[in-house]
């Protein structure tokens, strides 16, 4: 567990430690300054409120959630359906208000629960709009439900004397594992050896003033690739070392600012800039507060009262987060190509993938055949996402079968004609064109109908 050596944690009364495991127990119930949680709560709430407001102002609820006549879903969440457009905007309003209320801090757990439910509901409506940072928001939101997020910096209320040190460590671990797993995902030949997809993305930014020519240098994609991997893999550790923390945070802000300027990654850089603040300890926040003219309270001195259910829940959640990104090792083939184990695993910015997919439909009873184009009833974003993701292709094949059944064709065969390019490789079929997708079950296991031979890299 990543745990910063905060001054307040060191002040906690020592516990008897007759056995080695006692050190962990001691760490779990040691106390620390709640201000860290307070700062994180405010930053998170404000960024998410801004994100919700942006979503509303850009009018995305219609094109992303209300307009599609068919929705891709996550396993186990097929029952989640979109509200009418007014309901979707109401849900976005709930996200906005609950994020602000959470930042304010009164009844923090209640407002956080409202936020997590409303935000996650919106994300579950349409799996084709999956983004890592949306998932991060939901995941860390659930984790925060187990933590005393309203313990400090609540207007009109005194800060709690202390909180268990593990609460802060849990947040730091969650933020840290996002970076580390994103770094591990980059330990891939495409990224390190071929500098893909940066060789595609960086030249496109050659027109930027001042820095543009740098992106056009032949070696620059490799510099970005290795530098990016090194950053992701090590930044949590630099942020954990008190002496290096300010500089590490500067590096993190610079890194995210560059990614924001260069790539179309929405609010992700800002979410991570705020999230990385969790590594600062109470002393540092209080020092900053004094420099800004505040009069922070004295550091806490009393021991924290541990909550077993909270600790247990956090351990379960973090265990899931530590194992889920590793599941792609259980699947044969390259997950960048097969997409098996790709989501919920912090594979951030490691693929440039495009595809052309249509479906051949045949009615064995009548001998009639059709070619279904996804563009006829999917939105452009849905079609793009579906064209290279096997589980979406399977879902859409089932939808086609239902459409034809509704039109009087009782039992049609549906086969996918796919052509997919990954990171500059020549396009190739992704799905076995001989397989009738209506005859294969939905499964989270390896899909035998996915063609796993990855074309040679460019």
């Amino acid at each position, binding site marked *: 567990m990543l745990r910063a050596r905060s001054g307040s944690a060191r002040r906690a009364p020592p516990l008897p430690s007759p056995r080695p495991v006692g050190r962990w127990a001691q760490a779990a119930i040691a106390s620390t300054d709640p201000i860290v949680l307070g700062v994180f709560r405010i930053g998170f709430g404000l960024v998410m409120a801004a994100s919700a407001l942006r979503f509303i102002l850009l009018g995305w609820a219609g094109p992303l959630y209300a307009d599609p006549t068919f929705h891709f879903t996550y396993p186990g969440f097929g029952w989640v359906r979109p509200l009418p457009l007014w309901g979707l905007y109401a849900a976005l309003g709930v996200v906005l208000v609950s994020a602000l209320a959470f930042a304010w801090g009164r009844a923090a757990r209640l407002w956080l629960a409202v936020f997590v439910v409303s935000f996650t509901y919106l994300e579950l409506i349409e799996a084709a709009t999956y983004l890592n*940072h949306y998932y991060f928001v939901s995941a860390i939101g659930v984790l925060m439900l187990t933590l005393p997020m309203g313990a400090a910096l609540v207007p009109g209320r005194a800060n709690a004397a202390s909180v268990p040190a593990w609460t802060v460590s849990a947040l730091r671990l969650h933020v840290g594992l996002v970076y580390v797993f994103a770094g591990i995902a980059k330990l891939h030949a495409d990224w390190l050896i071929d500098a893909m997809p940066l060789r595609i993305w960086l030249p496109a930014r050659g027109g930027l003033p001042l820095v543009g020519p740098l992106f056009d240098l032949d070696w620059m994609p490799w510099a970005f690739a290795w530098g990016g991997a090194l950053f992701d893999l090590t930044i949590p550790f630099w942020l954990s070392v008190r002496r290096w923390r300010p500089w590490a*945070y500067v590096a993190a802000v610079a890194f995210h600012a560059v990614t924001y300027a260069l790539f179309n990654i929405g609010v992700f850089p800002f979410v991570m800039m705020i999230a990385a603040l969790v590594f600062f300890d109470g002393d540092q926040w209080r020092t900053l507060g004094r420099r800004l003219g505040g009069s922070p309270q004295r550091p806490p001195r009393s021991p924290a009262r541990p909550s077993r259910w909270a600790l247990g829940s956090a351990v379960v959640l973090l265990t899931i987060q530590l194992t889920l990104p590793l599941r792609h090792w259980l699947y044969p083939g390259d997950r960048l190509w097969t997409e098996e184990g790709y989501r919920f695993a912090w594979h951030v910015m490691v693929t440039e993938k495009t595809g052309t997919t249509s479906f051949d439909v045949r009615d064995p009873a009548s001998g009639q055949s059709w070619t279904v184009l996804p563009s006829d009833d999917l939105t452009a974003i849905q079609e793009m996402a579906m064209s290279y993701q096997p589980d979406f292709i399977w879902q859409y094949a089932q939808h086609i079968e239902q459409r034809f059944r509704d039109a009087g064709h009782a039992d049609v065969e549906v086969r996918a004609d796919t052509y997919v390019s990954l990171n500059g490789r020549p396009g190739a079929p992704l799905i076995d064109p001989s397989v009738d997708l209506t005859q294969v079950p939905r499964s989270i296991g390896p899909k035998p109908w996915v063609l796993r031979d990855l074309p040679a890299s460019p």
Partner: protein
Amino acid sequence: MIDTIRSFRTAIAVVALVLGLGLTAAACDNGSEGPTTDRDAVRQAMLADLASRVILPTHDDFVRDADELASALEALASSPSASTLEAARVEWRTTAATWHRLSALNMPGVRFGLYHNRINTWPANVEVIEESIATTATIDSAYVAARGSNARGLPGLEYLLFAGDDALAALNADPQRRAYARFVAADVAYQGRVLQDRWVADGGDEIGMFVDADTEGRDLQSSVSRLVNEMAMLAEDLRYQKVGRPMGIARNPSEPGGDPQPDLVEAPYANTSIDLFRADLAGLRALMTGGGGTGLDDYLVTLEAELDGQPLGAALIGQIDRTDAAAASLTVPLRSAVTDQRGAAETLYEETGTLLRLIKTDLANWLGVSITFSDNDGDSR
């Protein structure tokens, strides 16, 4: 503690500096003032050549041809005869072919103006056309302009000039029909000038925006992104709408699947669907080659984009040529070929499919272009 305070102050100063630089770079993103690298120079040269060698000249050609078509229809309306009808038909074929070289240029700024719809919505709705003719009202420019897009434009005019056993007799018999044909042609010429005005620098300056929107691929205003999206849409249209549907490759369960549908060819009355198909391909080829200047193929070379050992641009042009050859190999009109030359028609369908895949998948991948005109919240999936 003093060290911590100093570290904080320094760190905050550096953060401010970095953010300032980042935001400056982002803010300047829309104000590119000139090429900064060789690759950047090629991209800008490509956009400039596409503008000056392809987009503007082709629109000029269309306006010229449409004016001549309108003149031919005036002659036909005032003095209907076999020769004036044939002259009008020749002008229609020429104008329609020129129009199809513009098919891939219906970019968002233009599309929202519905200019292409008013000139070439197909198939024409013959019932509405006949209802429009069977009126006691005076048929003039205003009357035609008030009709729906599928009752005028080039397809509407094609119906009036080519449909039926004896189009000349029908025109001779009904002055309203002649007037309608004449003013539809005039409307096509007028809409062509309106479209041209939308593009030119001293009009809507769509061309200036096309050349200046040089952010390429990152956002949806990028000219390259718009261009590739339009090329992909056209290739999909060529495969499924213009070849597939007449072959009987139905897309909807309510349609019979598998039976040839010859009447669904483009230009079913003039029987020029293959000529128009090849004109569409010529438009795609011009975008790839820059009309003899710097084209997409040259820009792809700077990106070192390859496909199976050859430059991707060359592979794409080669595929356009193979598709064109497959189209040229049909010795009868497409409406007959879908049954009489089935093998050749299927070859054309497959070659068009390969072209579609190369554009929509390989080309888009190397350019980092999303095949979508919708915005989204990022690409950090």
